[in-house]
């Protein structure tokens, strides 16, 4: 079963993809499928992108039985699910990758955004990474994914509305303004370069949540200058390295890269990156429980400025 179903209660689309239940799990003894020579790669590579073997969306989706009922709507799973290989080195990670490799990854994200946006029916391109078994990552080889949606996801829709409203009221872009406000306040800033800043946001939902903001309004990777790509690579490295040194482990996180929609874009929407680590302490998980999942309201059991202070003090490898 593979289709997109409409939830009229909250006005959102759900990807139904029951085939994904048989996704591969990495065995401790068998070869990693993402390594050169593994199931997916019969050759070596530096960075690579490929169509997910178990996609939730496809450019040629299976036909669906259309249900033209008022409340039970469905549509084919048109879209694209890509896997992004950061490096061929199995034991690496963004935190351990050289700056130069992260720069190249940013160029790859840029290229994928450009390519996927060529499909007129793609409306939102969302690069992300699930790291660690705590967030459901099934393979440890450093990789991320890109979902190219045929619709604007609900939370992104909320972001667009909020940023467009802010722009209308202030004649100024929200994301660079938040960056400036956090820099003025100082206490939640973790690391700053000329073009990007990493903060534990004032309104963080997860204890170790970190956002990376550009200092000017950007919509997509495609607009970034060489210098911005370099600065972003350094900031990504510093943040992920600090995460790993926090509890001296491969720190699990979800990394969400928010770009403006495509076909058409939103002028007010600002590019930024959000990290959601599921941990609230070395051996404690911050669960997405009833309140968080049911109401989209988060209870943060820590004070963002305290966490930022801690993350500032944690060493990093550059």
């Amino acid at each position, binding site marked *: 079963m593979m289709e997109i179903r409409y939830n009229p209660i909250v006005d959102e689309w759900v990807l139904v993809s029951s085939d994904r239940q048989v996704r591969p799990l990495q065995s401790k003894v068998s070869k990693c499928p993402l390594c050169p020579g593994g199931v997916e790669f019969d050759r070596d590579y*530096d960075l690579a992108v490929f169509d997910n073997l178990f996609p939730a969306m496809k450019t040629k989706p299976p036909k669906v039985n259309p249900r033209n009922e008022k409340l039970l709507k469905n549509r084919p799973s048109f879209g694209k699910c890509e896997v992004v290989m950061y490096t061929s080195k199995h034991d690496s990670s963004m935190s351990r990758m050289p700056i130069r490799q992260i*720069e190249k990854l940013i160029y790859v994200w840029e290229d994928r955004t450009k390519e996927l946006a060529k499909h007129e029916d793609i409306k939102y391109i969302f690069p992300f990474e699930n790291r660690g078994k705590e967030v459901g990552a099934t393979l440890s080889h450093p990789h991320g994914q890109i979902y190219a949606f045929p619709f604007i996801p609900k939370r992104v829709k909320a972001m667009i509305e909020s940023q467009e409203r802010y722009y209308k009221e202030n004649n100024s872009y929200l994301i660079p303004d938040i960056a400036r406000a956090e820099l003025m306040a100082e206490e939640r800033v973790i690391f700053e370069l000329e073009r990007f800043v990493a903060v534990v946001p004032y309104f963080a939902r997860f204890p170790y949540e970190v956002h990376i903001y550009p200092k000017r309004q950007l919509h997509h990777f495609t607009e970034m200058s060489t210098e911005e790509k370099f600065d972003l690579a*350094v900031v990504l490295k510093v943040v992920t390295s600090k995460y790993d040194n926090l509890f001296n482990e491969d720190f699990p996180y979800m990394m969400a890269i928010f770009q403006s929609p495509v076909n058409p874009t939103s002028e007010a929407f600002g590019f930024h990156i959000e990290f959601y680590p599921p941990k609230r302490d070395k051996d404690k998980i911050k669960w997405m429980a009833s309140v968080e999942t049911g109401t989209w309201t988060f209870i943060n059991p820590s004070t963002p400025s305290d966490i930022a202070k801690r993350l500032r003090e944690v060493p990093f*490898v550059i």
Partner: protein
Amino acid sequence: MKVLGNSVKAGEVKKTIGNFEITATISEEANKVELKVKNISMEPRFAGTFEVGEVIPTERLLVNNFQSWGPCKLTNKRDILEHAFGNALITEYPISPVPWELHNHIVSDYFVSTEREFLGFLSSSVCHPYFVMQENGIKIKVYLGKTLKPEESVKLDPLWWSSFPPFEEALRDYAETVAKNNRPRIGEPLFGWASWYHYYLEISESFLEKEIEVIKEKKIQYKLFQVDDGYEKDIGDWLYTNKKFPSGIKSLAEKIRQSNMMPGIWTAPFSMSETSEVFKNHPNWAVKDEEGNPIVAYKNWGKSIYALDTTNPDARRWLNETFSTLRNYGYGFFKIDFLFAGMIPGKRYLNVTPVEAYRMGMSEIRKAVKDAHILGCGAPLLPSIGYVDSMRIGADTAPYWHEKDNGMPSAKYAMRNTLTRNFMNGLWWRNDPDCIMARLTNTELNKNERTLNIFLPALINSVYLQSDKLYTLSEHEICEVKSALNFRGGNSRVWFVDSERFATSSTGAVNGDVLAFVNLSDTEWYVDTSEFTPLLKGNASGFLVTYPSMTKVKERRQKVEPHSILILMHCSRVKLKREDEKKKDGREFHYYGSDET
């Protein structure tokens, strides 16, 4: 330059000096002088020192000592002549294989550079070539050190010259020409741990086992674990351990290998202490003076140290057996130290030159250890090419700065030579700038000096050995070393601003291209970085982040603190390449690579 009293002109020049005739064949095309010495008397004659030419000094000179620890530095003529008087009584072999020349003069071994000319010998496989600084000129000399039969002639090592600017290019050309004239081995720039600079002689089996455990716990990816001086029973008795190593060195090698590191071991193969079993059992294996008494090559460990006669067949057999045994124990890395002892002048079993004797000893060790990594230390430079995989190119470092430039332990001068001898790196061998020390305690190095010590060896992509008691290090200290590792792997070049200030570039390092400024002086240095950006084919606006401060590069003029390094990281000039492929199952694969433009 003049050769045998004549101006440089293509062709052959001859000169008779006492019982010998020297022939110089000059090739202007190859900038090369081939030299030959012949005994023209009717008797066997000892061929010692010969003056083969001279060059006019300029105010600024680059001089070089013959062995690992000695200085290689830019200096000026006046300082050299004043310095000569200070050294008037020094006659020790660690400083020179021709110590009698030091009574009144400073000697530059193998090569010298004035502000107009660069002169360097292309090898030292027969004689010891050197340059003597005198008020009226720099004398070009060679020391042979063996008896020639009547009519016997010997081909000496050739001399090469170059004019410049730029000076750095002349050094590079020289290094490349030497490499072509020899058969160098270029070792891997190993990352490892070494015991010396925190334990010194106080190592023990249990201390080392503790370090191995910490390495596992901290997940530091050392490839090499090198045991330094302190395990052996005596200098010369390398296969026998002292009380601190009850299980012996074979068992230690096994423990290191089980931890997925290559075992490395220190020895001083051409040295025998007066109390060692090897000397007591074989006093005839020592190099002797004219009266037949063993010559004290140097004093250390509170003992007199004699030099092994590497031309003696029994001594060579012993040398081979010692190193074959260590190799069979599992050691894959051999730091061989105090090697100059093998090249002291004196009487040996065979009538060969000290340089030839030295090379016979080195050849025996190489044969015994096969393809294992040899790190030369305290070693004559040119004669070691082809035998060592890596070479110490400066003084021992130290957990203190130290301002005396005399080859004794000094963080400052270890790093100075790292820069001045960088032109040898990757062409003659892999340079070893000596260990880095990441610790903040048990060191007199200040924050800047420590950062310089950690990052400079990484930037020049040399052997990278750490010498700290790892259990004393904080996560911050370990993270700095891990960061330094990401500045390795580049192609490095060094530019001399003056004797204490240098610029280095590294292209293609793990983290990308970097430019660094090293200030060894005691005063601040304000550098216009844009003057150096062409060295990296970069652009001034592409330098975005400084290290270690991790702040943005605000302006071209940058302050480099005394005793510090400033690193500028350059953004990549990535030109992405994509190769698309459609798999049988219909899925699209895109392979990305990049060209650095």
